[in-house]
């Protein structure tokens, strides 16, 4: 057994134990589960710290200053000072001092989100909804045109009614007085159907992902036990 094997064995053992400790939560909350969770949080925080140090502090601040200090000064010095200023957010008493930096970040994030939502989702999806009724594309796909058209109408109806359910439905619940239009109410009810179907599909996908994780961990346990048995035996 070389060191790599030992290290692999040690890693596997640690993983095995931690897996069992987390599975113990099925019985009830217990100290083993808490211990495993706290170890996990500590290790995750440690790795995140190192990653930020390498990718930001070392490669974006220190290295540019070392290699070409003058040309990079405008890219390095302001964010370095602002970053130190932002560290005041860690103190409850000095937290208010870091608000301008956060405001800067929020402003830029909001602007990028606006452009992305507009050009990346809103316009293409509206265009896609319109292009559902592209008969030429339907013919090229070779599908039944009627079926294609039916599908297109269902998709369009589903899109519109889902939008109607979200905006008008929520608004109706928030309003204490007044009624919405009956036809909007009817559209909202239809949109509720499409919404339920979409959420059903999402739930299935989450369950499938969880099944896959269960399979992986049980497989790991199975493999570790067999490995240990094989090693022992």
């Amino acid at each position, binding site marked *: 057994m070389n060191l790599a094997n030992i290290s692999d064995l*040690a890693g596997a053992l640690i993983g095995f134990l931690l897996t069992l400790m987390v599975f113990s939560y099925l019985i009830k909350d217990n100290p083993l589960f808490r211990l495993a969770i706290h*170890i996990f949080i500590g290790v995750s925080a440690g790795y995140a710290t190192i990653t930020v140090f390498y990718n930001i502090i070392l490669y974006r601040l220190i290295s540019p200053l070392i290699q070409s200090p003058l040309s990079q000064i405008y890219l390095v010095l302001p964010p370095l000072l602002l970053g130190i200023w932002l560290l005041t957010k860690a103190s409850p008493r000095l937290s208010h001092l870091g608000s*301008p930096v956060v405001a800067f970040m929020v402003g830029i994030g909001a602007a990028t989100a*606006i452009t992305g*939502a507009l050009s990346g*989702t809103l316009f293409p999806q509206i265009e896609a909804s319109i292009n559902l009724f592209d008969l030429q594309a339907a013919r090229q796909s070779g599908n039944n045109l009627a079926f294609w058209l039916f599908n297109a109408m269902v998709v369009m109806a589903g899109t519109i009614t889902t939008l109607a359910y979200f905006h008008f439905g929520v608004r109706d619940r928030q309003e204490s007085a007044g009624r919405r239009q009956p036809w909007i109410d009817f559209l909202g009810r239809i949109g509720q159907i499409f919404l339920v*179907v979409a959420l059903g599909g999402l739930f299935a996908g989450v369950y499938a992902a969880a099944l896959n994780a269960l399979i992986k961990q049980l497989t790991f346990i199975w493999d570790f036990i067999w490995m240990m048995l094989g090693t022992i035996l």
Partner: protein
Amino acid sequence: MKSPSAIFNMTIACSAGLVTLLGYFIPPLAGIRDVLLQWAVILAGFALLVGIINLLSAHFRKLSKAKKGGFYSLVLILSFVGSLIVFGVSGPDGSWSLLLFNSVQVSVESTLLALLTVVLAYAAIRLFHKEVTRATVLFMLTFLIVLVSSAPLFGLSNTPLLSELREWLSSVPIVAGARGILIGVALGVLAAGLRILMGVDRPYGR
């Protein structure tokens, strides 16, 4: 009347956002926009460090005051320090780092997600216990259809009908609902962003 600090913060947020937006249309502003974006990325890294510092300080406080659960705080702090040493020495992509990462982080997160299987199954079972409505029936039907169609049933061969049904569900009703959700989310992001740029919403504090 807003305080001077609130006005100052709002001015910063609005000006930064405006420069970023106008950089799309005004080429001379694109350079300034890129510089601001680089600063924002670096500051985002510092923001992650602030979060970690806050986490450690909370557990330090818990440990120093000898509150209940102080042992776990000690374990967390020790784990952080130990992993910091290992990751720092080995590097983010070193072998020891990967070993520690695989044995701890991957194992625990995967196990936590595995626990979700039981929880979701129990929640699906209890769905009809309180009330059986059209929505719950439709939800359960969709769930089962999509789940079953994701993999062939054990012992059974692939059923084309089930696959086509799943295909139609995915491409028509699910897409319709998802597209409506996406458009609504996009409109919400647009509205929220405009509110921030206009200073109506100030999530960065006063």
